[in-house]
């Protein structure tokens, strides 16, 4: 136990001091505040029938901030904790541990605990902020501990599962980075979709979902539905996001989440599954290490098999080779670079997804499909702007004659990839005479690489874009119409929105180039 605690503590201290942890806390708080009922502007969560007023009573503040946290923390949290083993490998800590007497499962449990502690800390910070919000918005109106705490408790069992998934994905070295991120996103959307219907509506949710529901929604929704039904006699039939507040709606109060034995057992089951996943990560990691070591050994053999040095200067031309500035050559090299390093199945999948937009129903393509295709290419875009910083190659590139404008070539290559993704769909829209839809797609296609290069250059990491882009896509898919940067259905499109995305995209692109070229520094 002492070893486990030492690992967990050291890892927790190391990661909680990073700037990215502060960013996680801020984003969690924003998600929670975003969901709090507000009678002055539009509200983010609403229920159908659209007749209830959630703004008048303080009991909705903890409930709604926990709801927001439950929606976003499992996703944000996963992307924050999913690089802990890789980080140790990069820093060499991994080798220190493996060469000591420490057992791998002790190390993994330590990591798992540290992940949980980080995410629980984020929940605690949001709880404190919610308490402050209550004091300022409803002075003198105190809630019982049950009403305040019970909405947050459903996350207690969800967080270990998120951490365990991160550990097992990392232990299989092939699910690190982009591939794991995409699989987790798909898993998250599927679970969210299933759990959102628990206890309500026409759809029947399978019980087992409760055992793997790391969003906690399957615990929260039934309680909410029952609570409102007991007060008003009206049943909630659906949830939706983004709505105007209702000033004269039926005033309802939240009485806290009710827990029965079944719920407690489900929560314990979830914690047990998390623990088993962490334990399973140990043999899985060993197996994948073995596979990787064999591959590496083969590679090392190559260097051993090299012929003995035969250094004869006369064999080689040592004359200077003439240089010609070649914009297209630089761009082609950059494009090749952006697309390199991906496995064959990924390329094949990408081509199939792009071609599929020729045959799928045009409505689906224009509404959500194109946005989903962009998710497939997230690792391509996320390397824009930050690749040179991450690999420390900037000092090599900056001294090359074409290196001055390398970021511009990256931007142009990103745009080429982006336009390639939308081209088949755009051709269909042109043939259908929907020129406004084509314009919306073009604006969206400019926005994605611009956001990528901006965040990449300023944060010097892939994660910023990956998290932001997944959040945007997620929020857009779940009803956040203002975030649908590529909503090209003729009846639903908004040219103002498209132009906003285009202008903000171009602005971000220019800012990224200025940052790399030190223009901002020179002016300041």
């Amino acid at each position, binding site marked *: 136990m002492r070893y486990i605690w030492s690992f967990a503590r050291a890892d927790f201290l190391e990661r909680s001091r990073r700037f990215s942890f502060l960013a996680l806390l801020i984003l969690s708080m924003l998600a929670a505040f975003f969901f709090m009922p507000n009678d002055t502007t539009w509200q983010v969560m609403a229920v159908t029938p659209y007749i209830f007023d959630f703004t008048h009573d303080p009991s909705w503040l903890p409930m709604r901030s926990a709801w927001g946290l439950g929606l976003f923390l499992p996703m944000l949290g996963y992307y924050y904790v999913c690089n802990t083993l890789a980080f140790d490998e990069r820093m060499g800590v991994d080798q220190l541990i493996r060469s000591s007497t420490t057992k791998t499962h002790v190390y993994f449990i330590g990591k798992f605990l540290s992940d949980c502690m980080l995410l629980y800390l984020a929940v605690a910070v949001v709880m404190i902020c919610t308490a402050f919000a209550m004091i300022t918005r409803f002075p003198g109106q105190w809630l019982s501990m049950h009403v305040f705490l019970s909405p947050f408790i459903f996350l207690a069992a969800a967080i270990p599962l998120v951490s365990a998934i991160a550990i097992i994905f990392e232990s299989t070295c092939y699910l690190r980075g982009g591939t794991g991120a995409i699989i987790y996103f798909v898993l998250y959307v599927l679970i969210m979709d299933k759990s959102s219907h628990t206890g309500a509506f026409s759809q029947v949710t399978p019980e087992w979902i409760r055992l793997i529901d790391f969003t906690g929604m399957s615990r929260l929704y039934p309680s909410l539905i029952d609570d409102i039904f007991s007060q008003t006699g009206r049943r909630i039939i659906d949830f939706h996001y983004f709505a105007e507040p209702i000033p004269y709606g039926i005033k309802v109060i939240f009485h806290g989440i009710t827990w029965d034995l079944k719920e407690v057992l489900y929560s314990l089951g979830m914690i047990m599954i998390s623990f088993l996943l962490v334990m399973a990560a140990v043999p899985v990691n060993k197996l994948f290490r073995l596979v990787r070591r064999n591959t590496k050994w083969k590679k090392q053999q190559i260097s051993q098999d090299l012929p003995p040095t035969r250094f004869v200067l006369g064999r080689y031309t040592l004359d200077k080779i003439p240089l010609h500035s070649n914009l297209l*050559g630089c761009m082609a090299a950059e494009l090749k670079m952006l697309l390199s390093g991906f496995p064959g199945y990924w390329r094949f999948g990408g081509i199939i997804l792009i071609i599929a937009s020729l045959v799928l129903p045009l409505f689906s393509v224009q509404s959500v499909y194109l946005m989903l295709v962009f998710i497939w290419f997230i690792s391509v875009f996320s390397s824009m702007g930050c690749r040179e910083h991450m690999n420390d190659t900037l000092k090599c590139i900056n*001294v090359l004659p074409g290196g001055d404008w390398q970021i511009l070539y990256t931007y142009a290559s990103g745009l080429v990839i982006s336009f390639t993704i939308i081209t088949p769909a755009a051709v269909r829209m042109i043939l259908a005479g929907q020129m406004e839809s084509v314009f919306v797609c073009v604006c969206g296609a400019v926005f994605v690489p611009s956001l990528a290069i901006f965040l990449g250059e300023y944060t010097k990491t892939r994660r910023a874009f990956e998290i932001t882009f997944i959040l945007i896509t997620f929020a857009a898919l779940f009803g956040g119409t203002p975030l649908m940067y590529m909503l090209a259905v003729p009846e639903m499109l908004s040219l103002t929105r498209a132009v906003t995305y285009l202008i903000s995209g171009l602005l971000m692109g220019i800012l990224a180039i200025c940052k790399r070229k030190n223009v901002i520094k020179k002016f300041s």
Partner: protein
Amino acid sequence: MRLQIDNVTKKYGSTYALNDLSLSIESGGIFGLVGRNGAGKSTLMKILVTLEKPAEGTVRLDDIDIIKNPNAIRRVLGYLPQDAAIYPNLTSFEFLSYVAAMKGIGKKAAVKHINELLDMLNLAAAKKKRLSSYSGGMRQRVGIACALLGMPEIIIMDEPSTGLDPEERYNLRQLLMELAKTRIVILSTHIISDIESAASNLAVMNSGRLLYTGDVQSFALSENGDIESAYLKLIHKGEAR
């Protein structure tokens, strides 16, 4: 070709990395740069390759001020930084092709030239393997190949022999000596024996100042041909001042 460094000063906060340094480097023979850690060698190199700008002073390539016109030197420069950086997911051939494109080497010429460089640096058999699978020495050789792409007229290398085995170090020295006959080759190192066997001129730096500049032979002769003793004596003398 001649690099003329005049009264260059560079400060980081209140610490002088270079303090009123003047130096002249000409083609024909390797120019060695030695000194302790933090002596200012890397800063000087960064200024020469236009990654940093001095607070004061000028650097001229023949008659062109490279501080004002950095592209003048970039067109004829090959640079190996202290930690040769690479893209781990690329093969050595892909990485060098990328750098060649950025340098402005035509595609056909680049393929032939890269193959020749890889062969020269004993990497030809591994050219289709990802750089992540390379050993430290192999990565260093990729960095060297990167600096030699286009066979530039000015070659600046910071600790090039790091991670190389004795045979590869010997090969590199031979290659640089051959190249230095018609080019400016500046070599920064901690390994005095590299300077002794390869360089014709050297500069000894300490705390951003120049303690010695001149030919290697005269420097060694000051201590009966023992260059290491001459170096240590000079450094300690510089410190005592």
